[in-house]
């Protein structure tokens, strides 16, 4: 099935109109010796068969509707209201493209304008763009923008070790041709204040994540002090953040951010095995001409009626080519729409309530787990929906036990990214985790069971031997 309406009769009439005998003649410019290679692909299947095949493939996964899950680390399970799927499932939205022709794209344009407004509401920034690919690429673009704001003169980036390790990796990938100096990643991820001493006159920006990768909230007063140091040296202060946390906690504008970006997947996007996600990006008014990406602005039509258009495009690749602020073209528009619908559905009180549920449940889990012998919290700092738990055994060992014996997907192994955090698990609890799930996790890790499982494991090995 190739979704082609042309019949043989249509094709014959069209070939005649073109003035060729057959379709092959249309490909005369293709080197003859290379024409029509065999493609070794599996034989095609019908819609009925493909549905069965894909369902079977999907069933090889353990899906999180059927397993309590305590994984976060940048991809979060949050409740997605039914309206989100219904709106983004409107094919007037999802089968359109970039709104190059505004008069027949007002649906996309107005919804992006509203999205930009809501991102500004959350972050406290003046302007937001229409999206980046994800939180990591949004952060990498923030670095490029900060260097560009200094007209390329400042070549140093202070990057907190508390920023998601994969986001930091993407910053390195993006900037590998730019000869920048990136410092700060070797420091203690929980000691953000040490970054202040690294800021100098060559620093383009200082980047922190709040809540940081270990789940902890930075003290807004301490961040304000860091922002003041950055500003006193002429550097920008960049904050990567979890938008759900902004339902409850200080907006980055309150503590001096110039650029706020982050992963917007939590706003109405599913987990989807890591993509498509949503990079949101906002900044202060004075930097708007250096911002990457699509921006929608309000205007009027020739009758004076309000309407919306893509604007300030003199920043963009299709106009400025090699002098553009970024190469970004397609972004994650449909995920931005999902985020807008989510934020509108939650509204002022709903988003706060989601954040509170996460906070209370995560703290309940932390309090119960850290009461178990051998387990303790890494830090007493306040946290949001994730926390780092010191464990008596290697994290992968515990996770294997949790999955095999209890059907629980455990937390993230921080030892993979931080040398000092071996045997430390990053546990995420959201509004989706019930008290029963949390209690089950506690029960599973209680010495009664965990040590007994250990003994059984040992006896199995003896039998095998």
């Amino acid at each position, binding site marked *: 099935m190739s979704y082609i309406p042309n019949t043989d009769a249509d094709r014959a009439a069209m070939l005649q109109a073109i003035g060729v005998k057959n379709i092959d003649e249309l490909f005369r410019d*293709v080197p003859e010796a290379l024409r*029509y290679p065999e493609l070794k692909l599996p034989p095609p299947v019908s819609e009925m068969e493909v549905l069965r095949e894909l369902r079977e493939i999907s069933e090889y996964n353990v899906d999180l509707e059927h397993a309590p899950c305590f994984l976060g680390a940048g991809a979060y399970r949050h409740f997605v209201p039914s309206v989100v799927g219904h709106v983004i499932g409107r094919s007037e939205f999802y089968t359109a493209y970039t709104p190059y022709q505004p008069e027949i794209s007002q649906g996309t344009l107005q919804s992006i304008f509203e999205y930009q407004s809501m991102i500004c509401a959350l972050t406290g920034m003046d302007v937001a763009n229409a999206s980046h690919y994800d939180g990591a690429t949004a952060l990498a673009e923030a670095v490029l923008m900060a260097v560009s704001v200094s007209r390329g003169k400042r070549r140093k980036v202070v990057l907190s070790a508390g920023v998601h390790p994969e986001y930091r990796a993407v910053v390195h990938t993006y900037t590998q041709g730019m000869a920048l100096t990136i410092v700060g990643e070797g420091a203690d991820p929980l000691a953000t204040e040490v970054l202040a001493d690294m800021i100098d006159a060559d620093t383009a920006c200082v980047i922190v994540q709040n809540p940081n990768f270990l789940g902890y909230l930075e003290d807004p007063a301490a961040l304000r002090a860091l922002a003041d140091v950055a500003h006193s040296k002429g550097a920008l202060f960049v904050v990567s953040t979890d938008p759900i946390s902004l339902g409850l906690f200080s907006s980055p504008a309150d503590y001096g951010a110039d650029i706020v970006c982050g992963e917007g997947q939590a706003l109405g996007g599913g987990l989807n095995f*890591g993509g498509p996600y949503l990079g949101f990006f906002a900044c202060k008014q004075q930097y708007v001409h250096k911002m990457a990406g699509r921006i929608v602005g309000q205007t009027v039509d020739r009758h004076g009626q309000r309407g919306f258009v893509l604007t300030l495009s003199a920043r963009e690749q299709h106009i400025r080519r090699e002098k553009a602020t970024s190469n970004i073209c397609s972004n994650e528009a449909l995920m931005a729409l999902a985020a807008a619908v989510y934020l509108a559905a939650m509204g002022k009180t709903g988003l706060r309530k989601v954040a509170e549920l996460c906070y209370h449940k995560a703290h309940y889990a932390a309090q119960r787990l850290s009461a178990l012998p051998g387990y303790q919290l890494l830090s007493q700092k306040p946290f949001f929906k994730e926390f780092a738990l010191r464990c008596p055994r290697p994290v992968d060992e515990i996770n294997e036990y949790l999955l095999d014996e209890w059907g629980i997907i455990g937390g993230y192994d921080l030892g993979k990214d931080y040398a000092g955090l071996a045997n430390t698990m990053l546990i995420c609890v959201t509004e989706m985790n019930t008290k029963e799930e949390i209690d089950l996790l506690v029960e599973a890790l209680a010495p009664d069971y965990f040590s007994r499982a250990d003994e059984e494991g040992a006896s199995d090995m003896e039998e095998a031997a």
Partner: protein
Amino acid sequence: MREPLIYEISSPGRVGVNLPECDVPVTPLPKEYLREDLPLPEVSEVDLVRHYVRLSQLNYAVDTGFYPLGSCTMKYNPKVNEEVAKLPGFVHTHPYQPPDTVQGNLFLMYQLQEFLKEISGFASVSLQPAAGAHGELTGVLMIRAYHESRGDHKRTRMLIPDSAHGTNPASTTMAGYETVKIPSDARGNVDLEELRAHCDDTVAGLMLTNPNTLGLFDEHVQEIARLIHECGGLLYGDGANLNAIMGIVKPAALGFDVMHFNLHKTFSTPHGGGGPGAGPVGANEVLAPFLPGPIVVKERVEEESDSDEEWEEEEMYYYHWQMPPSSIGRLKAFYGNFGVCIKAYTYIRMLGAAGLREASENAVLNANYLLSRLKGVYPLPYDRTCMHEFVLSGRLPDAPDVHTIDIAKRLMDFGFHPPTIYFPLIVPEALMIEPTETESKETLDAFADALIQIAQEAKTNPELLHSAPHLAPVARLDEVLAARQPVLQCLK
């Protein structure tokens, strides 16, 4: 037609969703960390739904009509693709789950890597890039890493034909290279003389779109590859126009070293109003070690059969992640736009080899048919057999005051989405038309009839074009005002 803003239908106290009560003991909140105000709208679910449904109705989309946006391949998006991408076994999987709990996802990604390798002829594919431009940045960084790995530090220039997408030079700058523009010749090919003059040991590579943005297959593509390779450079392929050549020719066989695919164009995944797309990158043996990762690999495992006491060898594979040995690194968090990959996999499974070739053949047939109907009505700067798209000029000899923008806006009154306009830059007043294979002859004829009538109107009643559109949800919008007095959100 004016739809109020979501903030204009907000009323204090309304909520659009109800949430469960807290089922655990509460913990005091750290007061000095809390925000004071959260200026989000407050709307009921019914108002929310009506707002967005009404907004959707102001959009033109592939599902509402013909969308011949050149270089964007706005083909029909099969509904089965949407169904499979929503399967709970895919949607509810976390990217950090242990690999043995996501073997289905890894299998699908592995298979898609293999399909794309087969279609393109490349040795290896990474699904990580999230869009075409993201794939371009990937490719240029790979070329850079290759030269650096050989200690060849003098290569600082990327050659880019003047017909290229704007993303090519923009990606080049991001990767730290200088852009050198190569002109096109009179037949719309890369000018070989100009190219030769620029080929030296400072050239990192050439970025070539083939078929190019004029919709023409470069008649010297193999010679271009030879010249670039001879001077030590590498050839990047912008795969935006792959829809013309699936099963017709493999880009790797033409001499490309690295290329991105646009799953949202060629492989029918929807464009989402501007994304999400996906821009996987394929590379030959030379560049494969530099691909971004991780990518999916498989290894054979021998399993004991449950049904038999004896050891039985069965073809069983375990799929897992691997970083290519000299990888440029990660291009995004996690692995790629997996949801988009599911749709592209499904499309390739349903078409098979013959179906993909048929798609390309009919895309090229449709474009040439439409061209045959419009040739002579609108100026055609490069009069050749086109591939999946073609470029006309909107500069009509008898209507000097009419511009391409007027023609485009007037097309809306006939119920069509305008083509890409004012691109490529080398054609004045360009109209870049890509019909795709999923349109019928009747649709193409209706579109040609409309453009022919508009050309008449341009002569007899140009005001009708200048004041167009007349039947769109809003009249022509003032883009200059939007840029001069930016209003970019509604809270300030």
